């Protein structure tokens, strides 16, 4: 297989797990459904066949216990990758994640380490509803000792996963379900060192869009249409929640003077506030206008697609916010019209027909 390929985000994760299993003999992949016929939305496909049932395992329904068990295995020198099909299920494991995984190295004065990766998937659409579509990443990102990454592109998914597995610290790897089918270039020759901090996905001088995970895709769509109107946005994919790369955003804002933060989380649960607050404390005069955070409303996601459709901000909402910030309101109607998706808004792509 060539070193450069076009893969979906999901396939890039599979590829990274595959390469890492080959590289690290002590690595394990474990989770409910990991070896079942659906293989976690195909992200673990074929791994059991190649690496055996000992290294690619299913598990009992016991999120906290299994997290503790993976911590113990990691202490003993294994590299477990634990998978939860929804980030919501990781709430059951908060104790082991926060009290143990995050603190073990610190508590024991650096004498022990926990090379653990926990994969979690943010659900959305097709009636996932209140308990299967939460965006809890900021909850984990506020825990000292946990690394939280949330790549957007297939290439980053591949490299961040490899890095997470090679890392001797616990890493929470946050996937958005709606990224899984999106394809991108995966260049395996990219040096591992380059895979940290935020990434500028598009250059522009009119406004900075600092975006997290799936909404980065929407930001790019908005930027494309705005460019047709001469408005060039600088799109920064934040990628890592800890440490949060304020530097890159500050540099961009120094050029653009305007900031839109876009997040996949309820406003009150958005790590965007951390970004905005740190920027403000650092340099209060950079911005020519108030920054804006576009995020989800502060309530659970209702199941009914009649409602959920309007829960999620899309490219048109980002564009509208940008045009407001830049005081170009007259453009809003036409820009938003061209951004409106014809796809039902509870389906990630046209091939999706439920039930997940």
């Amino acid at each position, binding site marked *: 297989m060539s070193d450069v390929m076009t893969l979906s985000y999901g396939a890039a994760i599979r590829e990274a797990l595959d390469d890492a299993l080959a590289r690290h003999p002590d690595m394990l992949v474990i989770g*409910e459904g990991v070896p079942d016929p659906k293989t976690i939305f195909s992200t673990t496909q074929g791994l059991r066949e190649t690496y055996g049932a000992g290294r690619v395992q299913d598990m009992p329904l016991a999120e906290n216990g299994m997290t503790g068990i993976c911590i113990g295995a990691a202490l003993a020198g294994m590299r477990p990758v634990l998978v939860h099909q929804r980030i919501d299920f990781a709430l059951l494991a908060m104790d082991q994640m926060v009290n143990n995984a995050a603190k073990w190295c610190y508590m024991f004065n650096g004498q022990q380490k926990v090379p653990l990766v926990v994969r979690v998937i943010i659900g959305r659409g097709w009636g*996932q509803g209140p*308990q299967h579509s939460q965006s809890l990443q900021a909850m984990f990102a506020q825990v000292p000792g946990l690394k939280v990454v949330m790549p957007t592109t297939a290439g980053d998914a591949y490299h961040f996963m490899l890095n997470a597995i090679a890392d001797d610290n616990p890493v929470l790897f946050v996937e958005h379900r709606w990224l899984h089918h999106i394809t991108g270039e995966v260049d395996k020759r990219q040096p591992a060192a380059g895979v940290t901090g935020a990434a500028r996905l598009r250059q522009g001088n009119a406004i900075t869009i600092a975006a997290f995970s799936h909404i980065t895709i929407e930001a790019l769509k908005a930027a494309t249409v705005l460019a047709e109107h001469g408005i060039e946005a600088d799109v920064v994919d934040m990628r890592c929640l800890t440490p949060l790369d304020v530097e890159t955003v500050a540099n961009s804002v120094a050029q653009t003077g305007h900031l839109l933060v876009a997040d996949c989380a309820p406003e009150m649960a958005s790590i965007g506030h951390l970004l905005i607050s740190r920027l403000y404390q650092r340099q209060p005069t950079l911005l020519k206008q108030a920054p804006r955070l576009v995020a989800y*409303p502060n309530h659970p996601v209702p199941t009914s697609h009649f409602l959920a459709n309007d829960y999620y901000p899309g490219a048109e909402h980002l564009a509208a916010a940008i045009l407001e910030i830049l005081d170009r309101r007259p453009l809003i109607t036409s820009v938003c019209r061209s951004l409106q998706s014809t796809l039902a808004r509870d389906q990630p792509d046209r091939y999706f027909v*439920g039930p997940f």
Partner: protein
Amino acid sequence: MSLPTTAELTGLYHRMLRIRRIEEAIATRYAEQQMRCPTHLCIGEEAIAVGICAHLTVADKVFSNHRGHGHYLAKGGSLVGLLAELYGFAEGCCGGRGGSMHLSDLNAGFVASTPIVGGTVPVAAGYAWAEQIKGSGNVVVVFFGDGCFEEGVVHETLNFAALKKLPLVMVCENNQYSVMTPLNERQPARDIYPIAAAHGLNATSGDGNRVEQVHALAQAAIAAVRAGAGPQFLELHTHRWPEHCGPNEDDDLGYRPPGELATWKLRCPLRHTEHMLRLCGVTDGDLQVMEQQIGVEIDQAFAIALSGRRPDVISMTHHIHV
């Protein structure tokens, strides 16, 4: 174990058949992509919900999980409320907010189903605790699966239920699978109910596909609760026919050993009961009438549900708090 009378058995059969036909109708119409939510059907497992709920009054309470249609219907939950909920309409039993995985019909004493596995188990115990404190005499039943039994919170609940001698019946529907993962990849080779027994619950197991057996076990368990004997635990063996989530069959995926599903289909709870009814003299004609009545009810219910109202977008922000 006392057997149900013919009249009782006919009633049980009717309720099982109704659930089966409703689930089938949902499966058929699911392809229209109007019910846009994860839906876990209980086809093949109807006897448990029906056999247990037969002994409950409206004032008794039921809690359930992601696979909740059967429990909801057996407890007397509104069919139109269920279907409208699946369609996401305002008339749904949760106003469309919950879909298939969150059901509630307080008029029927069906308090709630939710899809975080294990989530309702302690809640049901807490409800039973309150009933006990209030001295209401009501019984609380919670349904959950074999996979759910692996969650720590279930064991915390067993301890508290035994400690307080709660008026609670815990019903473990052991269909041997958690999604597509068989029991032997998740639990050692042993029964489930002895663990509950070791905690101090009155625990037993039975064939969940024989409604008369479920009915008899439930009768004893619920009578014991009403008599103040404390919490009861039933492990009932059964099997799910369709895929874990969704309207289709999935035997082609190969996660079940060849022939397993076919064997369980031979042990269909409906077919078994039908056989018994015929021995008791129930005729083809009787059964056809039943089928027809149910068919009409379902068609009407879908028609009413489908004429439902889309919830207003603004309503999305309501009820974050009371």
